[in-house]
Every structure is written in C-alpha cells, then in structure tokens.
C-alpha cells in the first residue's frame, strides 16, 4: 500500500496496444488518474510503479528486465490485461513467455527480487478497472474477487 503519490512508468512488453490505449484513457480529463496522484514519468528510475502490459515477447525480455531493475525499491507492478496476468491468448505461443509469473522466474534466477504485483485482468480492462487497481494500491478500495470452489456432495 502506497501513501504518497504514485509515479508510474508505462512499460509495453509486446502488447497489442489495446491495454496501452486504456492506460492513456485513465490519464485523460474524463477518468483523470491524477486525482489519485498518478503521474506518468518518462524514466523507470523516477517511477514507484510500473504499468505493465503485454505477454512479454522473447524479443523484449532483456529490455523489460533492465527496465524493472531500474525502478527503485519499494517497487510495484500493475500487470494490466489478461496477457500480462496469465499470458492471455498467447499463453502457449513460442514467441512469448506468457505473463509476468514466467518473467519473475527469470528475475529470480538472476538474483533480482520480483516487484509486488497487482493483477488487473481484462481484455482490455476498462479504464475504471485500472483506476480500481490504483485505488487498491492506495488503500481506498478493497478487493472484490475471491477464489471460489464448489464441490458436489
């Protein structure tokens, strides 16, 4: 949970641009994420959180790792869209890693601590869903989903 204003860095790891357009949407006056203190910065070194989109294409892995390394601790990562959360429609493609969890596997093997992650599923998520994630990060709202298991008796 972050008390201060969140400065975000937008990191595209090979997404189809739908999630990126939704991220641009939350910065426009209509949704206006700046109400919650969000500011888009140009360098990962200035950022508190990464707005992460895309299923991490193989071409992108080393650049993505470099960008995540550059963010100072404590760092947060908002995995936006189904691609970033679980690989989405590309989860079994040869050209992608398939989601941030696989990327964290590589980070761990390199000795880098993975950032704290907030998952925002959607294809693409609504701008409100991203705002909900930011509000959750700031402690304004609570989590609404829960694992549900039904077992027939």
């Amino acid at each position, binding site marked *: 949970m972050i008390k201060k204003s969140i400065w975000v860095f937008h990191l595209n790891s090979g997404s189809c641009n739908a999630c990126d357009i939704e991220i641009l949407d939350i910065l426009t006056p209509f949704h206006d994420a700046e109400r919650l203190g969000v500011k888009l910065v140009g360098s990962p070194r200035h950022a508190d959180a990464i707005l992460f989109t895309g299923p991490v294409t193989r071409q992108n892995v080393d650049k993505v790792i470099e960008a995540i390394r550059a963010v100072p601790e404590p760092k947060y990562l908002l995995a936006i869209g189904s691609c970033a959360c679980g690989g989405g*429609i590309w*989860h079994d493609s040869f050209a992608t890693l398939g989601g941030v969890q696989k990327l964290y596997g590589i980070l761990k093997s390199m000795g880098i601590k993975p950032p*704290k992650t907030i998952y925002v599923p959607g294809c693409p998520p609504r701008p*409100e*869903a991203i705002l909900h994630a930011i509000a959750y990060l700031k402690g304004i709202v609570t989590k609404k*989903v829960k694992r*549900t*298991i039904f*077992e*027939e008796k």
Partner: protein
Amino acid sequence: MGRFSLLGKSRKVGVVTEKYPFKPTELPEGFRGKPEINVEKCIGCGACVAECPPNALTMEDRDGYRVIRLFYGRCIFCGRCADVCPEEAISLTMEFELTSDTLTDLVQEVKLKMVKCIVCGRYYGTERHQRKIIEAMKSQGIELDPEIMYRCPEHRADTGAKLIGLRRESK
C-alpha cells in the same frame, strides 16, 4: 478574444471528470464482464472447455471428480463459453473490478461427481450429465436401459451390439 476566454467556456461546460473510485460507474448494456459458472446448473459436459480460445477454462478428471477450472487471469471475455453452454450455466456478469494481488484469487473451481463404469470401474462422465441424457431420452419417448447407461463408451458399444443381435468380441 480575451486572455481569459477559456475560463468562461470551462465554467459553461462544468466538471466532466467521473467520480469513479468513490462512486460506482455506469456500464453499457450487454457489457461482457467476469464470466461465472452457475454451480447448480453445470453438468460438466466440457463444451465451454473445448471452445475457450485462451484455455482459461480447463477440465481435469481426478479422484472421481471432474474439476472445471476457470482462471480469470487468462480470460479474454469473448463470451463464447456462454454461447455454447447447453445448460446456460455459464454467463457473463457485469463485474469488472477483478483487481487482486494474487493469482489464486482469480480462480473459480467446480468439482462434479463422476460415475464409474459397472464393468471396468473406470470413471467416464459426471452423474449430472448421465441424468441429463436419461431425461432427454425420456422426453423423446425412449426408455434407456440402465444396464447400458452406466457403462463406459467402450463397454456400452459391446452391450448395445449384443442387445440388437450383433456379435462383437469383448476385449
């Protein structure tokens, strides 16, 4: 045009910014949000699993249960599962706030009891599915012999062949 002409315009337009995290938002009609399986209706036929483009729906048979697992972290909200479901058990809700800090929260699991083949003891289908087949045949005026119904597809073929007078060697 004065220097402050924009001020008058902005006062006329007013505030356009939505109040979202503090007040609920409006959703358009027919919005495709989080899909949900109605556990009372689901028969475990697996039609949605075959149709799901990103394999967000998976099916597994273990320990006499058929486990249908819906993982929202991979779902692309296309709604095909709702289209193909013969029981209309799966439907898209208006929920979109799926924010979570763990992936385990983004899972719905439905475990349905399976039936054993009375010949070989293999689990081959769910109880609800078998009941559904018997009901559907009954509505068509066909009484199914339970001897045939509770056999796995292999042994069912054998018994069926014997019943209509064909000889078939059983393995």
